[in-house]
C-alpha cells in the first residue's frame, strides 16, 4: 500500500488547494461588494495591468499576424482556396488566436508581477501591517487587481486582434499587393457581432483566472525569497494552464450559445 499514501496526499492537496481558492475568492467577492471602494487603487492597477501590457500584447499580436499570414497563404494556395485568405486570417485571429495569445501573454507578464509583488509583501509582513491597520488586504490589494485584469483583458484582446490583422495584411501585401480596405472587406464578409463579441469577452474570464490565481498564490505564500520565487512561478504556470483549460470550455460554450 505504499503507493496509496503519496497518491492520497496528492488528491488531498488538490482538493485543499481548490477549497482554499474558493474561500479566498469568497472573501474577495464579499470585500469588493462592500464600501469603502478602492477607486484610486483600481485606476492605478488599470494602468499597471492594461497600459503597461499593451506593448507586449501588440508585439505578440503582430508576430502572430505575420506568422499566420505566411502559413495560411501557403496552405490555401496549395488547396486552391487563396481567395479565402482574408477570411481565414480574420476569423482565426478574432475567434481564437487573439484571445488566447492575449490570455497567455497577460498570464506571463501580469501573473508573475502580481504573484511576486504580493508574495514579497506577504513575507515582509506588509500584508499583516495592512490588516492591523484595519485595512482589508482583500479589498485593498486583491479586488482592484482582479477587477483590473477582468476589465483590461478584452481591451487588450482588441488591441492584439487589431495588430495581428494589420500585420497579417502587411505580410501578405509584401508578396501579393492588396489594399487594406479590400482585405478587411473580404475578411469580414458575412461576419456578425456574435462572431466577434463572445470570443473577445471570453477573455474577461481569462482575466478573472489570471488575477485570482496570482493574488491567491502571492497572498498565501510562505518562506522568504524562495517563497516569492515559488509564488511567481506558480502564478504563471497555473494561470496559463487554467486559461487554456477555460478556453476549451468557453469555445464549446460559445459554439452552443452562438452557433455560426
Amino acid at each position, binding site marked *: 500500500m505504499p503507493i496509496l499514501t503519496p497518491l492520497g496526499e496528492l488528491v488531498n492537496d488538490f482538493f485543499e488547494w481548490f477549497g482554499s481558492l474558493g474561500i479566498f475568492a469568497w472573501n474577495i467577492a464579499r470585500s469588493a461588494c462592500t464600501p469603502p471602494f478602492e477607486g484610486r487603487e483600481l485606476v492605478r492597477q488599470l494602468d499597471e495591468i492594461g497600459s503597461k501590457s499593451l506593448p507586449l500584447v501588440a508585439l505578440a499580436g503582430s508576430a502572430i499576424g505575420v506568422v499566420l499570414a505566411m502559413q495560411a497563404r501557403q496552405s490555401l494556395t496549395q488547396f486552391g482556396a487563396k481567395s479565402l485568405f482574408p477570411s481565414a486570417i480574420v476569423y482565426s485571429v478574432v475567434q481564437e488566436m487573439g484571445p488566447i495569445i492575449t490570455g497567455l501573454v497577460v498570464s506571463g507578464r501580469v501573473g508573475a508581477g502580481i504573484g511576486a509583488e504580493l508574495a*514579497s509583501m506577504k513575507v*515582509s*509582513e*506588509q500584508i*499583516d*501591517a495592512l490588516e*492591523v*491597520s*484595519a485595512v*482589508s488586504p482583500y479589498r485593498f490589494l486583491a479586488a482592484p487587481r482582479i477587477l483590473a485584469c477582468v476589465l483590461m483583458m478584452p481591451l487588450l484582446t482588441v488591441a492584439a486582434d487589431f495588430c495581428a490583422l494589420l500585420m497579417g495584411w502587411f505580410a501578405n501585401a509584401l508578396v501579393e499587393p492588396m489594399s487594406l480596405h479590400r482585405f478587411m472587406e473580404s475578411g469580414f464578409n458575412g461576419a456578425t457581432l456574435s462572431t466577434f463579441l463572445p470570443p473577445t469577452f471570453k477573455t474577461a474570464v481569462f482575466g478573472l483566472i489570471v488575477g485570482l490565481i496570482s493574488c491567491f498564490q502571492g497572498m498565501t505564500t510562505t518562506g522568504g525569497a524562495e517563497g516569492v520565487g515559488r509564488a511567481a512561478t506558480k502564478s504563471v504556470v497555473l494561470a496559463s494552464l487554467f486559461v487554456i483549460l477555460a478556453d476549451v470550455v468557453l469555445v464549446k460554450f460559445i459554439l452552443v450559445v452562438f452557433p455560426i
Partner: protein
Amino acid sequence: MNSTLANARSSSRTTRPVANVQESSNGDATPIVNVEDVYKAFGQQHVLNGVSLTVNPGETRAVLGRSGTGKSVLLRLIVGLQEPDSGTVKVFGENTTGLSLDQLAPIRKKMGFLFQHAALYDSLNVAENVAFPLRHHRADMARSEQNDRVRQVLYEVGMENQSAKMPADLSGGMQKRTGLARALVLDPELLLLDEPTAGLDPMGSAEINELVLKLQKEHHMAFIVVTHDMHSARTIANRLTLLNKGCVVIDGSFEELQDSSIEFVREFLKHS
C-alpha cells in the same frame, strides 16, 4: 506649521484619562487586554500552553523569553492576525476570536502595532507610510490636517527630516521609528511592540526606549512589548511576564523577578 510642530512634543494629542492610570496602579481597572488560558500549536509544535495575562490602561507590560517561546505569537493573537486553538483573547472587552476582518476593524483602529522588521510599505515613502492609516480611516479630516498630523508624529519620533525617503534608504532604527510613527498616527489606546530594539546598536536601542518612555509619559497609552532584551524591558515596563516553552513562568515587577527562586527565572536573569 511651526506652532504645530512646537506643540507636538508637549502632547497636543488626546490623552488617556488620568483616572484610568490610577485605576491601573490599584489593579481595579477593566483590562484593555485579557488573555485567558490560551493554547496555540502549529502542527506538532505546541507554542502556547495555557497562557493568561492582562494589561490595564496605562500599563506597560514586557513579555520576555527565549527565542521561539511564543512571544510574537502571543502578540499576533492579541491583534487578531492568528486565532487561538482554545482559550479566549479579549481586547477592549471584546472577544476577538472568530471575528471577520470587518468586525475586527473597529478594535484594530484603537491599536497600534510595531512589527519586528517595521513592515513598511516599500512602494511608499516615509510620509506616505505614516499617512496610510489616516487616508483610510480619517476621511473626515481635510488633506492638510492629515498632513499636519503626519508631520506631528514624524516629529515625535524624530523623523521629520526624512519624510521623503523610501524605506529601502533607511537604517534599521529609522525604519522602526517610522513604523512607530505609523502605529501612533491614529492615536491608539494600546500599542504592541514586537522586538522594538532587536537588531539595533546600543545607541539605537536607547533611543527607542526613550521614545517609548516619552510616549508613556505624554499619552498614557498601554503597551505590550515583546523582547528578549532585559535592559530594555527593565527600562520601559512596569510589569514583566516571562515565558518558557509556551507557559508563563512568572508575572510581576522587575523586583519580583529578581527575588524569584524559580530556577529558570534565575538562569534567564543571569544570562540577560
